[in-house]
């Protein structure tokens, strides 16, 4: 297998080989979307340190891994137990993907309420491609049109060209899904170092409500690349709580590019907890497109060893009376490195915007590093915006206070780290999810992950 960097030409060659076998190959609009995206990648090339959005994160090690390959069916069948977050009570609202491919056998969809479509992308492309036609590639702005939002996103371009499978969830008008829908992605079976081009789509129709939890797990030692593209549309009056837990093994590369459109009086809430992977890049763009739209973009990254996690977000306030809130917290140990790039853009017409952003990092070792770049770009004059970033160490005064009360040093440190992260976890409005993620933080502290 080649160790050379994949040039656009090599990728085009790989694409040519598998084009006819990709899902939806017989759907003309998709086939041309793929080809256009590959062309876009050829224009963009791999991001380098000179690319502003990639200043702190290098993809050097990813550029040699073949993009087109996926899995062998045999290994998929060897999964018996799904490491899911939610217990039996919500067993009927689960989609499971192994090595990036939907597993009907491991999934359980029998409790999905009427009016909700929850299926695999590959399946929908076979049975009902029309459901996707005006959506796939549209929220991310790739499907042409005057406003190309994905201009600088080569990974999304590659994902669109090579997308293989992923989930499609459409929650119909006025439908309320009370229990969380969990999507489990189990990666790294078979040990092949390949790229899983996962493509997800969430459509919340008017006044619908749902909680979706993505749970990414993998083997400690399996090297593979998860390159995900995700599009989310939250229509007027709808509410989506979109949570993500990523605890993949330390050889894994986890890349994702997410686009979210939030319409009038709609709410999008997200929390991303990253403790896994060698290299993580969470890139999320949220566009507040209708008056009264609100988003909460939050997360926490807990790293040790030589892990690297990059959270890059853009929140665009496009119309008046929209609000956003962003809270990220990092705890960095060992020689790990965290990156937070948060941009809030308030467009010319977006008067009365209310936007707040904060990133705080706790450095647990002298060798850990955080690069934070908060940015406010404001073109309106009547707005309320703030941002802030801090990096510090454990408060020695607090540590001594706890120890002087009999709490051993290790436990005292854990308590303080947990408390520090708690401020971000508090932002999770779903109590069950908050409790579960709190538990995951506890596991991380106990080195139980």
């Amino acid at each position, binding site marked *: 297998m080649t160790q050379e960097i994949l040039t656009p030409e090599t990728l085009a060659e790989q694409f040519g080989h598998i084009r006819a076998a990709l899902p939806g190959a017989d759907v003309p609009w998709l086939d041309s979307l793929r080809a256009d995206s590959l062309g876009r990648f050829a224009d963009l090339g791999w991001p380098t340190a000179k690319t502003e959005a990639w200043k702190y994160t290098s993809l050097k090690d990813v550029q040699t891994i073949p993009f087109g390959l996926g899995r062998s069916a045999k290994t998929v069948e060897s999964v018996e137990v799904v490491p899911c977050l939610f217990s039996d009570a919500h067993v009927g609202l689960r989609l499971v993907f192994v090595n990036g491919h939907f597993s009907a056998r491991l999934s359980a969809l029998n409790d999905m309420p009427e009016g909700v479509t929850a299926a695999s992308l590959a399946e929908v492309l076979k049975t009902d491609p029309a459901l996707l036609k005006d959506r796939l590639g549209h929220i991310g702005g790739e499907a042409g049109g005057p406003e190309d939002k994905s201009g600088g996103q080569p990974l999304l371009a590659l994902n669109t060209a090579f997308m293989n499978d992923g989930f499609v969830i459409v929650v119909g008008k006025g439908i309320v899904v009370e229990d969380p829908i969990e999507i489990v992605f189990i990666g790294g079976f078979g040990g092949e170092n390949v790229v899983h081009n996962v493509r997800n789509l969430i459509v919340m129709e008017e006044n619908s409500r749902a909680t979706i939890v993505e749970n990414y797990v993998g083997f400690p030692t399996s090297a593979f690349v998860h390159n995900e593209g995700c599009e989310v549309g939250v229509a007027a009056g709808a509410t989506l709580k979109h949570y993500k837990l990523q605890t993949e093994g330390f050889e894994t590369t986890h890349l994702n590019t997410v686009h979210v459109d939030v319409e009038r009086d709609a709410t999008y809430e997200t929390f991303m907890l990253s403790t896994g992977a060698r290299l993580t890049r969470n890139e999320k763009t949220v566009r507040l497109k209708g008056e009264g739209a609100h988003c909460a973009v939050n997360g926490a990254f807990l790293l040790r060893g030589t892990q690297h996690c990059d959270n890059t977000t853009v929140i665009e306030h496009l119309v008046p009376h929209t609000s956003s809130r962003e809270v990220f917290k990092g705890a960095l140990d060992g020689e790990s490195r965290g990156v937070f790039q948060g941009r809030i853009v308030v467009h010319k017409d977006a008067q009365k915007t209310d936007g707040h952003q904060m990133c705080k990092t706790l450095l647990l070792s002298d060798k850990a590093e955080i690069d934070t770049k908060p940015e406010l770009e404001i073109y309106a004059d009547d707005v309320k915006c703030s941002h802030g970033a801090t990096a510090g160490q454990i*408060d*020695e*005064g*607090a540590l*001594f*206070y*706890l*120890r*002087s*009360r*009999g*709490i*051993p*040093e290790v*436990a*005292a440190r854990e*308590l*303080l780290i*947990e*408390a*520090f992260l*708690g*401020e971000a976890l508090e932002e999770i409005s779903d109590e069950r999810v908050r409790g579960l993620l709190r538990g995951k933080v506890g596991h991380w502290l106990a080195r139980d992950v």
Partner: protein
Amino acid sequence: MSVAPMLDIKNLHATVDGKPILKGLTLSINPGEIHAMMGPNGSGKSTLSYVLTGREGYEVTDGEVQYEGRNLLDLEPEERAAQGIFLAFQYPVEIPGVTNTTFLKEALNAIRKHRGEDTMDAMEFMKFLRAKTKELGIAEDMLKRSVNVGFSGGEKKRNEVLQMAVLEPKLAILDETDSGLDIDALKTVASGVNALRTPERSMLVITHYQRLLDYIVPDFVHVLANGKIQRSGGKELAVELEKTGYADFIEAA
């Protein structure tokens, strides 16, 4: 016959950032005794409290401290707490995100574990804690709040007393517990402390002013100046100091 002292400090020398602060302090405290340590600012009062509780950055350069017949200075701060030493801080630390209840439960269970006792479960602990707050007249909502965050000066000091009540130390060191309190808050805190007096429990009450000693009446009063005890006496010494001030001792030193 003589009782073995609980705390026996001999010729203690300590430095902070290389600067000598304690310069030969000698003090014995027997079980059940209340000693007041008075002195001007900068005399080494707080340094003594931190040396006894093992805070980093307070280096003992000479002398020894025996606690219940063992070398105290060898122990980590949490081990000292487990052996029954408690410091009520002059400036209690705020810990956002840790509730008072969690903090107290972790502390008590850590100490019980260290002593080889069973830890308390959440239910059992809440019952125990509620009883303590009631005894001390402390509002229960204080338990749900983050440790000392947004507490008034009086609440912070009352919280120190609550911690003392929960951890039931053998030797309590009260570092300027009166600082920042108005007279009503002072009385409340002092009555809390007095409620914790027992024939076995010893206290070292560090204060600048005699005022506190009207409410927590000591058995002995010592004057600390220039890193050494300059004079010792009974409770009447505090009254005398209130009149004369510390000038004599500063000059003498």
